[in-house]
């Protein structure tokens, strides 16, 4: 073993054959291109004539239950065969080059999955060997990756004894073993406590922003997506509903106000809608209103006055990802 010290880089390479620093530049060209893809389970159409282009970076995949998020991920991995259409992942056809795609893609499944009778480090090394890594490299990298995901102490324990949070981390570790260019994460924070969830999100964010690995994160948890991703894709019933940059989606929407009222709530909402003011969500007395671009707040007071309603609080608010999502899925 010998050491190389570089003035430009603060990493010491212990074995040049094993770990050379790769200029893993994030590919900003298309990583996924779907053209009229349809996937069905029997009569149930899970992806319906879906056409979509995804560029590099961190992309959040949103949608209500049964929207087709997991089907989308499994289709681009080649685990499901489309009924129609065509798709490419990093320029490789999903029908003819499935193994090449899987060589470049890491997958963190939603459900608990592991191989019984193995310790954490053996499991991760085994996954690396299945990707074609030589035995020695796989074992050394397994230790490194487990250290990176914060499982230094637990790596020699049998996986069956791991907590839900540890199992999520080991799934992430196995997906990173072969140094993928694209990481697919399906609900990676499921079953984790707040601390573990934050650690996982920090890891995902670090992988995407610092390590230049493209990610697609499917989650029900909007804060998770907002924290880790720049772009979102919203699916509903297998169709694309919204796609774009999160900040742009939030900023392109109209002015929002939180309004607390006293009086007949339903008649007020009806009157607002008649004046093209959208009521996005409401608690008992608190409403979130989206005003048209040129509208002023005095119109709210006028509507309230006309309907015998008291406005007790009026506060400008930010248009959140939740608002984008709620509006998109029509919730």
């Amino acid at each position: 073993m010998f050491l190389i010290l570089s003035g430009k880089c603060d990493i010491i390479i212990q074995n040049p054959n094993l770990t050379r620093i790769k200029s893993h530049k994030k590919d900003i060209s298309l990583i996924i291109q779907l053209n009229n893809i349809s996937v069905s389970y029997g009569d149930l159409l899970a992806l319906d004539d879906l056409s979509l282009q995804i560029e590099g970076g961190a992309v959040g995949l949103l949608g209500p239950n049964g929207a087709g998020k997991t089907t989308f991920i499994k289709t681009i991995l080649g685990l499901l065969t489309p009924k129609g259409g065509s798709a490419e992942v990093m320029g490789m056809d999903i029908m003819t080059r499935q193994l090449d795609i899987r060589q470049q893609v890491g997958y963190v499944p939603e459900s608990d999955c592991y191989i019984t009778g193995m310790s954490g480090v053996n499991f991760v090394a085994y996954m690396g060997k299945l990707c074609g890594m030589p035995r020695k490299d796989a074992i050394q990298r397994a230790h490194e990756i487990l250290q990176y995901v914060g499982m230094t102490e637990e790596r020699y324990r049998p996986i069956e004894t791991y907590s839900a949070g540890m199992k999520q981390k080991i799934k992430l570790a196995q997906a990173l073993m072969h140094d993928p260019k694209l990481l697919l994460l399906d609900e990676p924070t499921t079953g984790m406590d707040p601390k573990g969830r934050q650690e996982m999100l920090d890891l995902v964010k670090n992988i995407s922003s610092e390590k230049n690995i493209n990610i697609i994160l499917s989650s029900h948890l909007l804060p998770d997506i907002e924290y880790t991703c720049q772009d979102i894709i919203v699916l509903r019933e297998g169709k694309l509903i919204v796609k774009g940059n999160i900040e742009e989606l939030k900023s392109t929407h109209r002015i929002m106000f939180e309004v607390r009222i006293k009086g007949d709530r339903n008649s007020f909402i009806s009157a607002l809608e008649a004046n093209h003011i959208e009521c996005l969500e409401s608690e008992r007395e608190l409403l979130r209103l989206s005003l048209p671009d040129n509208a002023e707040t005095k119109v709210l007071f006028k509507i309230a006055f006309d309907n015998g309603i008291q406005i007790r609080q009026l506060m400008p608010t930010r248009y959140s990802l939740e608002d984008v999502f709620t509006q998109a899925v029509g919730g």
Partner: protein
Amino acid sequence: MPIHDQSYRHWEGKLKSHSFRWWIIAFEGLKVVLRRKLFVILILIPAVIQFFVFGGLIYGVNTYGVFANFNLITPDFFYRFCFQQTFFILMICVFAGSGLIANDLKSNALQLYLSKPLTRFDYIAGKVATILIMLECITLVPGILLFLEHSALSQELTFIREQYWILGSIFLFSLILNVPITFLTLALSSVTKNNRYSAIILMAIIIGTPILGTLLKVVFRANWANYIQYWYNINALGRNIFGLQGDENAWHWSAPIMLILTIVCIWIMYRKIKGVEIVK
């Protein structure tokens, strides 16, 4: 400047060829099985002891003239050695084979395997190799060693000259003994997430079919009932391969029956082993 970066580092090593990915699965499977001490002590070691008993007989016959009046080392001797390993073959399949796929189904490991650059063929070939290697190690390998031992100890070359075909018979019979039961074990393992159920069904087929066949033979007084028995078919094929006395025409039925059984088992595995479980 840190002396060692503990963060994520990109890897740019050379990947191995795809052709032998199945071997990684087989090797790991063998490692897991051989770590089970009870399995090794109660099943593998007795199977090896059987080999030493037969090896001792060959040594005794050739060196001390034990049983000199009997022509002991004949094709029947090698056939008997292989056939007597069937108990250990069954035990290996029950205790080591029945959980090979069932455990992966139980822990959802299939989607991990198939999300890697692996085909279903690689996965199945790896699991088949895990069992087959163990079974061949207690049938084919010792069978050949016994043949070589006798060839080396006998004073003349007539044995090798006249009986060289026994080597081929040992090879063929070990395949007939091991291949159908390997696929049967794995097919049963792929239909349930509980390895105990697959072990029980395997035992029921292997031990139950002789009982059922015998009962049907008594009731109907018909020879076709013999072909229901798993071991009858194996025995019929084995005796034909070693040129021993028995029902000479039995293999006409036994061979297609074992072939169909193997094909059905492969079909079941291909149906059941998928990266996506569709819940209806």
